[in-house]
């Protein structure tokens, strides 16, 4: 159960000194020199400690929150959180007024300090970001929430720090929906699963009784669309992850698949296959009106809207092979944009609007890449035996996708895992999941 509303923000002071701060991170280039940052454990007094144990079964939620922050900053590839054992100043004193020389001595350029209290079943958190070189405070925030939200507090602090130091929104207070996979390749059991972006709080949304594929978040709400083989009828479904209610999308006399929301959250765009031909359709979620967008004897699939809802990119083999196309959202002005060697699939429009991410197959290798929306400037970010289905972080800086390993002739050695990579092509990382996993979709920021 997700309650975004129960996380109140009370911003009580904000003394940013942007003009004077010396540290700044350029995230438009591959960052090979991550910023050394000290994340001091958030200070918690003794009475709060008792409440923390009672409420959360955690002795020191302040230091747990700081670990969440530290891990987020580390996996972003932009920060190098320093070893806490080297810290000279105690958390409570540092939070009041850091001795900047001490932090400079261990080569920290930025410092996060904070304080937590748990009282009356409320978790109060305040934190500060310090610029060590300039010797001043860069940001200070405080908020109150229910204690069980403590990991989200860590994600929100991470987002604020990321935003303050890079100038762009973060992507830490987000979740990933994906397909959990278990069992042998020939009888794979697949379930919908959802987890925090850092791999914690995994929940399974289906039981594995029927095949489920390609879940995607609505960018504006807690809704998900996906493909289910319920009763052996492959259809696009809509699932409300707060209430658990689900329904079939539209009344199509055949398979519907490859669903995705429009960026305004008002429509679902998908493929409908009939008599061996797949075309693209939309359904308006308010008035349930279905519109046909493409009408071509080839396969048209994997549609994705531009963030302004004006264009659609999609995958078609109308040229004879899988290629990427862009059209106006009414289906007019169809233009092929992929012209490199190989096959192209799964185009996804960046939330920033300037790029389309894709999967490419060339000479037996699979690539995740990006190109501009007119097809120019193709850049391949990663090459592997098998990988596909990129999904953008809400700030358009990171792609998450899945990768499969080759199996031997007996079918052994197969695995499917989630991976992420920066738009720059650096910082490739496996995303931890409890089971094998595929078809990831990144949510929007839960709080702003």
């Amino acid at each position, binding site marked *: 159960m997700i309650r975004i509303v129960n996380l109140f923000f009370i911003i009580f002071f904000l003394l940013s000194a942007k003009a004077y701060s010396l540290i700044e991170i350029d995230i438009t280039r591959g960052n090979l020199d991550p910023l050394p940052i000290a994340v001091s454990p958030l200070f918690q007094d003794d009475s709060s400690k008792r409440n923390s144990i009672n409420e959360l079964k955690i002795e020191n939620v302040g230091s747990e929150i700081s670990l969440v922050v530290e891990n987020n900053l580390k996996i972003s590839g932009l920060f190098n959180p320093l070893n806490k054992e080297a810290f000279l100043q105690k958390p409570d004193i540092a939070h009041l007024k850091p001795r900047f020389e001490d932090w400079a001595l261990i080569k920290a350029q930025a410092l996060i300090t904070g304080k937590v209290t748990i009282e009356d079943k409320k978790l109060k958190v305040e934190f500060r970001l310090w610029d060590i070189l300039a010797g001043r405070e860069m940001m200070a925030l405080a908020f109150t929430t229910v204690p069980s939200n403590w990991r989200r507090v860590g994600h929100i602090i991470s987002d604020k720090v990321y935003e303050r130091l890079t100038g762009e929104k973060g992507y830490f207070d987000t979740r990933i929906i994906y397909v959990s996979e278990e069992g042998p390749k020939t009888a794979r059991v697949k379930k919908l699963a959802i987890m925090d972006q850092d791999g914690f709080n995994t929940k399974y949304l289906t039981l594995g009784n029927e095949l489920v*594929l390609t879940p995607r978040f609505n960018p504006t709400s807690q809704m998900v669309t996906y*493909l289910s083989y319920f009763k052996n009828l492959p259809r696009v479904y809509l699932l409300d992850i707060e209430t658990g209610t689900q329904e079939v999308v539209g009344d199509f006399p055949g398979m519907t698949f490859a669903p995705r929301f429009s960026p305004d959250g008002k429509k679902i765009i998908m493929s409908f296959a009939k008599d061996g031909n*797949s075309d693209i359709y939309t359904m308006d979620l308010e008035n349930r009106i279905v519109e046909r967008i493409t009408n071509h004897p080839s396969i048209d699939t994997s549609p994705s809207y531009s963030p302004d809802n004006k264009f659609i990119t999609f995958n078609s083999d109308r040229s004879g092979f*899988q290629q990427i196309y862009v059209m106006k959202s009414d289906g007019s002005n169809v233009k092929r944009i992929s012209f490199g060697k190989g096959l192209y699939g799964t185009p996804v429009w960046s939330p920033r609007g300037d790029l389309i991410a894709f999967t490419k197959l060339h000479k037996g290798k699979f690539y995740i890449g990006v190109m501009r929306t007119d097809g120019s400037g193709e850049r391949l970010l990663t090459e592997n035996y*098998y990988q596909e289905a990129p999904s953008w972080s809400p700030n358009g800086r990171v792609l998450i996708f899945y990768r499969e390993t080759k199996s*031997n002739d007996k*079918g052994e050695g197969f695995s499917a895992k989630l991976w992420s990579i920066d738009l720059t092509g650096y910082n490739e990382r496996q995303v931890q999941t409890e089971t094998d996993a595929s078809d990831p979709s990144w949510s929007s920021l839960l709080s702003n």
Partner: protein
Amino acid sequence: MNFSKSFRNTFLVILLSLIVSACATKKTTTTVEGQMQGDVYTGTDTVKYLADGVPDRVFFATNESILTTKSRDTLRKQANWLRENSSINVVVEGHADERGTREYNLALGERRANAAKDYLITYGISADRISVISYGKERPVDSGSNPLSWSKNRRSVTVKAN
């Protein structure tokens, strides 16, 4: 000392061996244990039978949904069997191999299943006796990651529905 000549000879030998090995690789992929023609599976490992002498499945080339001569022969046998057993309805399942994006493969599986269905219809089987379902790459019959395994998985399978 004719260095450049010996160099050229070495080069030629390397070039020749490359050509030979290229031919060798090509040969193995086209005739793996006599079970493939082009990259269409022609073996019987995975084949089941709807009735005596009526194979349940046909195989496709990579990214293709064209029926081969052998596939058409199999489907004519299925049509005959369906004519003789008019109370039986069937589901034609379309499948793809693992070397393609999931969504495209779902469409490709649907296209393959319909290619088989259409052929059964031309041989007199009523369309309402045949339904189709695509599994894309979700239900491989062979879990290997090699050209022979993939060729067994690019298939449409006719299954009794009742």
